[in-house]
């Protein structure tokens, strides 16, 4: 079977190269047949890569350990459901997965653009196939997932134990797919630029694909956070680890892009700027591939690590040079004479939004490369960790949140100071009130209070927009309040979907601010006979057990959680039972520690069984993580908001 897999990769590699050459020749000699054949060969890569993918799945399911990749990433004891995870658990398999995603993406893109902008399709296809052939080529010549094992094996090495988690079914594939498909908007804009037909139809398609990619990355990042939160050793939900950062940076740039694309759509401005943003996002996604696969920085993620760093670095450098040449050659075509009308306008606020998001990206990138930079200067190796990122990105995020409250109330073109103050009056009152209340009742950290209150400012502007809009509709059309609201937000999905996403960002911020400023954490030795008093909880160690499995030694600890009633230590009410575990995998030399978590809307009680001292005694780390669950609730809201924005319009409400 392995040979057939390699054969499929070879064929699809040849097809993608043929497609590029076919288009090149047909452009010069105007041969229509060759063009069609080149297009079809680009389509054909999809079924053939799918066959290769299916072969890999089949090999995993049938435990075909003659294939090295299957041997390295699974064993007989592995449940079949983990096949999906095992496929992208290592470098070779994840390359195949990425190739499959790119071929699906390019098929859908070319198919849909064939009708919209046929004149640019050859160029777009060539770029897509160029990118696809790179990944196929790397597999074919350097990292073939179907390489045969040199010896006969009865059983495989097994799957990385850290991957055995529900979050792992979705987090890596979403992130990888997101990073890989940034090539689509890049190919479309660059293709349109080369062909000299930079059209609005193409840009609209770019907007939709960007939103989808942005959604995939966002959800992927959030799922990764959730996974890291439930497992010890990953710095809580976000550790500013290099690999996390390379996933975050493209997302930030795409966030900037979807904002400035709104301006392009509405006012025909920022075309050049948006192209630059797409190119930056693409380069950052390639940077991510490089860091992930043998980059020079230290990270806790080492799943896909390989020795192929230099190949991905070269491709990244190419992905900077090629678009830059195209850009310098053609950029004049995108310049237009539209001007901004005023500082007090949506256009300016979007520019500042772009600046802030790029600033966060830049600071993150700077922190990531600084250790290399300092070694370059012959200095001692250093680490740039969480404290740096928090102290630099924290204030930038705060300003961004403040801008989120100002942006929506500014009008297009030109606003007056008078109307601005009229619109900001109520939110500002809420903001001040919130500060005062916090100062009186919960006085502690002024920065935290300011951050929390800024959230209320944004929330108040969004609610104000919705309430006023709904009221106007009720007055004008005599609708009931519910219908009026639905019709209001349905009338401009881009805008109101955006507000829903803003709400989810507020929830995210709530969790981030809560845990950053108010987390309480301590280590305790807990024993069976004594209740441990922590915060408002009383914790009892009820049971410990040790189990030996084929692949691991697992120790479990069970806790009874009581809450004090009426502030008295005697009046206790049992609220829940929790279980944490600490498993050691000798063959991987790895520990997998899962926390016992009691989640409430105000905060989580988080218990990590760090060390089993004896059967009755345990070293635990307990923390209270205020508002952390808001992070996870933000996910579905984010999803709903993005989907709402994306939902196709019917003819009736196409007017903006």
């Amino acid at each position, binding site marked *: 079977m392995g040979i057939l897999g390699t054969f499929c990769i070879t064929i699809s590699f040849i097809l993608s190269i043929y497609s590029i050459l076919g288009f090149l020749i047909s452009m010069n000699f105007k041969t229509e047949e060759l063009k069609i054949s080149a297009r079809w060969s680009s389509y054909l890569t999809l079924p053939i890569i799918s066959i290769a993918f299916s072969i890999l799945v089949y090999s995993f399911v049938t435990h075909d350990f003659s294939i090295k990749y299957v041997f390295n990433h699974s064993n007989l004891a592995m449940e079949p459901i983990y096949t999906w995870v095992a496929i992208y658990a290592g470098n070779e398999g994840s390359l195949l997965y990425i190739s499959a995603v790119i071929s699906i993406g390019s098929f859908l893109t070319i198919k849909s653009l064939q009708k919209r902008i046929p004149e640019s399709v050859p160029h777009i296809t060539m770029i897509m196939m160029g990118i696809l052939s790179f990944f196929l080529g790397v597999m074919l010549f350097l990292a073939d997932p179907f390489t045969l094992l040199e010896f006969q094996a009865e059983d495989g090495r097994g799957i990385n134990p850290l991957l055995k988690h529900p979050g792992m079914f979705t987090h890596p594939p979403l992130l990888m797919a997101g990073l890989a498909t940034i090539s689509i908007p890049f190919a479309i804009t660059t293709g349109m630029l080369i062909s000299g037909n930079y059209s609005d139809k193409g840009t609209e398609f770019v907007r939709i694909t960007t939103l989808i990619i942005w959604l995939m990355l966002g959800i992927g990042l959030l799922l990764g956070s959730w996974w890291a939160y439930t497992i010890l*050793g990953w710095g809580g939900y976000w550790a500013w680890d290099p690999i996390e950062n390379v996933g975050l940076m493209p997302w930030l740039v795409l966030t900037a892009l979807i904002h400035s694309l709104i301006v392009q759509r509405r006012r025909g401005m920022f075309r050049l700027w948006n192209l630059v943003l797409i190119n930056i996002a693409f380069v950052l996604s390639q940077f991510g591939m490089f860091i992930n696969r043998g980059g020079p920085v230290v990270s806790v993620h080492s799943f896909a690590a390989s020795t192929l760093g230099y190949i991905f670095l070269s491709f990244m450098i190419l992905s900077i040079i090629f678009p830059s040449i195209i850009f310098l050659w053609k950029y004049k075509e995108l310049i237009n004479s539209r001007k901004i009308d005023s500082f007090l306008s949506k256009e300016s606020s979007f520019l500042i939004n772009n600046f802030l998001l790029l600033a966060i990206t830049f600071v993150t990138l700077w922190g990531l490369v600084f250790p290399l930079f300092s070694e370059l200067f012959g200095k001692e190796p*250093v680490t740039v*960790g969480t404290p740096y990122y928090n102290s630099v990105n924290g204030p930038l995020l705060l300003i961004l949140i403040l801008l989120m409250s100002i942006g929506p109330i500014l009008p297009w073109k030109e606003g007056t100071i008078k109307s601005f103050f009229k619109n900001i009056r109520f939110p500002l009152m809420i903001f001040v009130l919130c500060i005062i209340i*916090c100062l009186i009742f919960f006085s502690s950290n002024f920065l935290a209070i300011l951050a929390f209150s800024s959230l209320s400012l944004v*929330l108040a502007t969004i609610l104000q927009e919705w309430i006023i809009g709904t009221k106007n509709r009720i007055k004008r059309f005599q609708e009931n309040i519910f219908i009026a609201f639905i019709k209001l937000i349905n009338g401009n999905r881009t805008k109101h979907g955006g507000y829903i996403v803003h709400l989810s960002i507020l929830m995210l911020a709530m969790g981030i601010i809560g845990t950053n400023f108010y987390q*309480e*954490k301590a280590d305790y030795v807990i024993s069976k006979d004594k209740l441990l008093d922590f915060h408002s909880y009383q914790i009892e160690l009820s049971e410990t057990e040790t189990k030996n499995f084929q692949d691991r030694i697992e120790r479990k600890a069970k806790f009874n959680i009581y809450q004090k009633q009426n502030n008295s230590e005697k009046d206790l009410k049992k609220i829940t039972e929790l279980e944490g575990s600490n498993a050691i995998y000798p063959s991987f030399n790895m520990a997998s520690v899962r926390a016992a978590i009691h989640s409430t809307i105000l905060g989580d009680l988080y218990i990590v069984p760090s060390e089993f001292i004896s059967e009755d005694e345990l070293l635990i780390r307990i923390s209270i993580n205020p508002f952390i669950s808001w992070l996870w609730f933000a996910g579905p809201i984010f999803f709903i908001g993005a989907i709402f924005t994306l939902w196709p319009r019917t003819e009736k409400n196409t007017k903006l």
Partner: protein
Amino acid sequence: MPYLKSILLCSIIPFSIFCSNQINDDENRAQYLFENIMCPVCDGQTISESQSQLAKNMRDIVRIKIEEGSTDDQILDYFKSKYGTSVLSNPPKSGFYFTVWLVPIIVLPSIFIGLLFLIRSLINPKKEN
């Protein structure tokens, strides 16, 4: 305004969770230090997170040193002299390493000011008159 109340109610979320803090200072300091010291044998993990034996020993040393009355800086310096600068989760705020902080502090505000000028220059001159 009638809707003011509803906005108010939604905007101000009860903060009752942040009332008690019974963890003593030494423990808080220990946890803070754990998060600021990297585990030298694990990739990208602090000793707060790591399950390795070395990290456990290092945590114990931190606790002992706190009990002995060392200051945070003394403890960090101790580990730095033993394992090198990269054991600190942050570069020192002095000498060459200060550039990691300096670049954001200088570059970002200057770009921002540049941006404001850019917006100004983009503003339609007709409107300004």
